[in-house]
C-alpha cells in the first residue's frame, strides 16, 4: 500500500474540524470484549495516563516509512538517505512543537518510556556539577522522576504541596524557596512534573524555573502527562530565566506506542558532558586504545541504532496534534474533565483526590478517586468485568504522593464497622494493601461524553449493588480481586503466535 491509496483528508484542515475527523481514527477504539454478564460490548478506554491508544495517522506514517526503512548514519543509498532525513525531521519536529529553539536545545531519543531519560539527565548533572549533590523534587512525582535522582545524588528532598491530605494542590512555592535557601549552593537541580500522573494537577513550571534559577539550580520537567494535552513552551519564555533546562516525556503518552523516550535539553547543559552510553554512531574515530567522541548533538548521546521507526511515528502524531492546535485539544479536554468531576461530585460515596478547585489548581483530564465501601482493586475489576470500563488502580508508581493523600483514611481503618477486635489484632500489610490505593480515570483525544456517562452510570449502578458484587469476587492478595466464575482466557483474544500462524497459513 502506498500513500496514494489512503483516503486523505484535506491537508489544510486544522483545529476542531481536524480533531473531529481524527477522533475515531485510533487503533483499539472499537475493541469489544465479552463481559461477566455474557454480554459483548465496546470497551470504554479510560486509561490514557498510562498509555494512549495509537493514532492511525501515526501508524500509517510508520507503515509508509517501512517501504524505505534502512538504518540511519548513512546517506549513500536512497533508503538510507530517506531514513536519515526522516529521523532528523523527527528531532526537529519535536523541538518546534515544544517551542525549543534548535540553536539552544537538542532533542535526544532514549530507551522506551521516560525512565532512561531521567537516569541520563541525573547523571549529566552529577557530572556537570559534582560538588552540588542535592536535588529537590516535588512530592507528586512518578517514581521515574524520583528514584534516578536518589540513585545518582546524595540528598534528595521532597518539596511539599499546597494544602493537606486529599485536598492537596500543586507544588508549594514558599516551601520550594525555603528549601532552596536552606540548601543554597548545594542544590544541583529541581525536578518536577508538569502535571501529576495521579491527580492531573498542574504545576507552575515556569515560576518554579524562575525561582530555581535565581538560586543557581537547573530545572528538569517531567512532561509525560502534559505534552499531549496542553501547549508547552520550553524555551521561548520572557524572561529567559523561566525557560526549562530539560524537558522529558515519552511517546507512548502521545498516541505513538513503541516510540522512544524524549529528552529536550539545553545544549549548554549537555555539550561538554561525557556520554555514558557508548557505541556506534557517536564517535568520529576509534583506535585500538582510544576513541574520539563526536561533538555533534544529538548523535553523541544516541549511541547505537536508534528507534528510527518509533521516533518517526511519534513525530507524525505530534504533527497531527500541532495541526489541531494544543489550545483546542486542552479546551476539549477541559470540557470532558468538568463533566467527569461534576458527575463524581454528585455521588456521595465518591472520594476525589487532590483539590478539584480548577480555578486555583488546574488539571489535565486525570482524576483519582475511591468509592466508600469498595477496595480500589475490587472497584476497578468490577468496572472492567461488568461494564467494560478500563481504568487503572493502585498507587500509579507515585507511592509518596498517594500515601500522603490516603493517610487520614488509613488511620481511620480501625473505626470502620466491619473491623472487629480480632481483625484489628491480625492487621497486617496485606489488609492495608487492599485499601492503600485509588482508581484512576484518564482521558485522551478519543474520549467522548458517552465514555464519561458510561463510567458514571456504572459507578452508580455497582454502588447500589455492593453486596452482590462483593459476593462475586475473592481477594487474591496484593490488592487484587478475581471473579469467582468469570475468568476469561485472554490468550484466546490475542496471542502473538496465533497471528503468526494466521499469516503463514494465508500466505
Amino acid at each position, binding site marked *: 500500500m502506498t500513500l496514494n491509496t489512503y483516503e486523505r483528508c484535506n491537508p489544510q484542515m486544522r483545529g476542531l474540524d481536524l480533531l473531529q475527523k481524527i477522533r475515531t481514527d485510533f487503533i483499539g477504539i472499537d475493541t469489544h470484549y465479552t463481559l461477566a454478564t455474557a454480554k459483548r460490548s465496546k470497551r470504554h478506554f479510560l486509561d490514557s495516563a498510562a498509555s494512549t491508544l495509537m493514532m492511525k495517522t501515526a501508524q500509517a506514517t510508520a507503515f509508509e516509512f517501512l517501504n524505505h526503512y534502512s538504518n540511519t548514519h548513512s546517506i549513500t543509498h536512497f533508503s538510507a538517505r530517506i531514513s536519515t532525513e526522516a529521523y532528523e525531521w523527527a528531532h526537529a519536529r519535536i523541538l518546534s512543537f515544544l517551542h525549543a529553539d534548535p540553536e539552544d536545545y537538542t532533542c535526544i531519543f532514549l530507551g522506551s518510556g521516560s525512565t532512561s531519560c531521567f537516569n541520563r539527565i541525573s547523571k549529566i548533572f552529577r557530572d556537570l556539577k559534582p560538588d552540588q549533590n542535592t536535588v529537590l523534587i516535588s512530592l507528586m512525582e512518578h517514581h521515574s522522576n524520583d528514584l534516578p535522582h536518589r540513585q545518582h545524588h546524595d540528598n534528595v528532598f521532597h518539596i511539599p504541596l499546597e494544602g493537606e491530605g486529599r485536598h492537596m494542590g500543586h507544588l508549594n512555592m514558599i516551601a520550594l524557596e525555603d528549601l532552596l535557601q536552606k540548601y543554597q549552593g548545594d542544590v544541583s537541580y529541581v525536578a518536577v512534573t508538569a502535571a501529576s500522573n495521579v491527580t492531573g494537577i498542574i504545576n507552575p513550571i515556569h515560576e518554579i524555573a524562575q525561582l530555581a534559577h535565581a538560586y543557581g539550580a537547573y530545572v528538569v520537567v517531567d512532561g509525560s502527562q502534559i505534552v499531549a494535552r496542553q501547549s508547552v513552551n520550553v524555551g521561548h519564555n520572557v524572561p529567559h530565566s523561566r525557560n526549562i533546562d530539560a524537558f522529558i516525556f515519552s511517546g507512548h503518552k502521545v498516541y505513538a506506542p513503541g516510540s522512544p523516550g524524549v529528552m529536550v535539553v539545553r545544549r549548554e547543559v549537555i555539550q561538554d558532558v561525557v556520554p555514558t552510553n557508548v557505541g556506534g554512531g557517536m564517535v568520529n574515530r576509534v583506535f585500538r586504545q582510544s576513541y574520539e567522541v563526536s561533538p555533534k548533538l544529538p548523535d553523541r548521546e544516541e549511541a547505537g541504532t536508534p528507534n528510527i521507526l518509533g521516533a518517526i511515528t511519534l513525530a507524525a502524531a505530534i504533527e497531527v496534534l500541532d495541526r489541531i492546535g494544543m489550545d483546542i485539544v486542552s479546551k476539549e479536554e477541559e470540557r470532558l474533565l468538568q463533566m467527569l468531576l461534576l458527575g463524581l461530585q454528585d455521588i456521595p460515596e465518591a472520594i476525589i483526590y487532590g483539590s478539584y478547585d480548577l480555578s486555583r489548581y488546574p488539571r489535565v483530564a486525570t482524576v483519582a478517586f475511591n468509592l466508600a465501601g469498595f477496595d480500589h482493586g475490587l472497584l476497578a475489576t468490577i468496572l472492567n468485568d461488568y461494564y467494560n470500563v478500563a481504568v487503572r488502580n493502585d498507587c500509579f508508581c507515585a507511592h509518596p504522593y498517594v500515601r500522603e493523600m490516603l493517610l487520614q483514611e488509613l488511620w481511620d*481503618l480501625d473505626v470502620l464497622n466491619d473491623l472487629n477486635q480480632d481483625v484489628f489484632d491480625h492487621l497486617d500489610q496485606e489488609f492495608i494493601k487492599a485499601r492503600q490505593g485509588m482508581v484512576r480515570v484518564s482521558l485522551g483525544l478519543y474520549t467522548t461524553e458517552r465514555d464519561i456517562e458510561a463510567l458514571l452510570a456504572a459507578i452508580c449502578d455497582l454502588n447500589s449493588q455492593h453486596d452482590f458484587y462483593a459476593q462475586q469476587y475473592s481477594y487474591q492478595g496484593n490488592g487484587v480481586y478475581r471473579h469467582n466464575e468469570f475468568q476469561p482466557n485472554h490468550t484466546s483474544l490475542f496471542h502473538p503466535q496465533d497471528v503468526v500462524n494466521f499469516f503463514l497459513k494465508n500466505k
Partner: protein
Amino acid sequence: MRDRLQELKGDKEQMEEIMQLNAQGLHCPLPVLKAKKVLASMVVGQLLEVSATDEDSVRDFEAFTRSHGHLLLKSWQANGVFVFLIQKGETS
C-alpha cells in the same frame, strides 16, 4: 464511695505507667494504627512511647497526634530507631 476511691487510685497508677509499643519493622500506616489501638485503651494524660524504624513515621506521628488531639511531647532518633513520646489527649 470506696469503689470510687479505688477507681481513682487505679487511674493514678495507670497514669504513672508509660505504655510501650514496639512498631519496629512495620511500615506506614501500621505504626500509627498500632499506636492508635494502644491509645484507645489508655486514660487521658497517660504516656505512650512508640519505637519505629520507618522514616515516614516521623511525619506521620506529628500529623497523627495533631489531627487526633494527642500531644507529641518528644521524639528522638537513636541507632536508626525513631522514638515518640505521646500523651493521650481528650478528643481522640
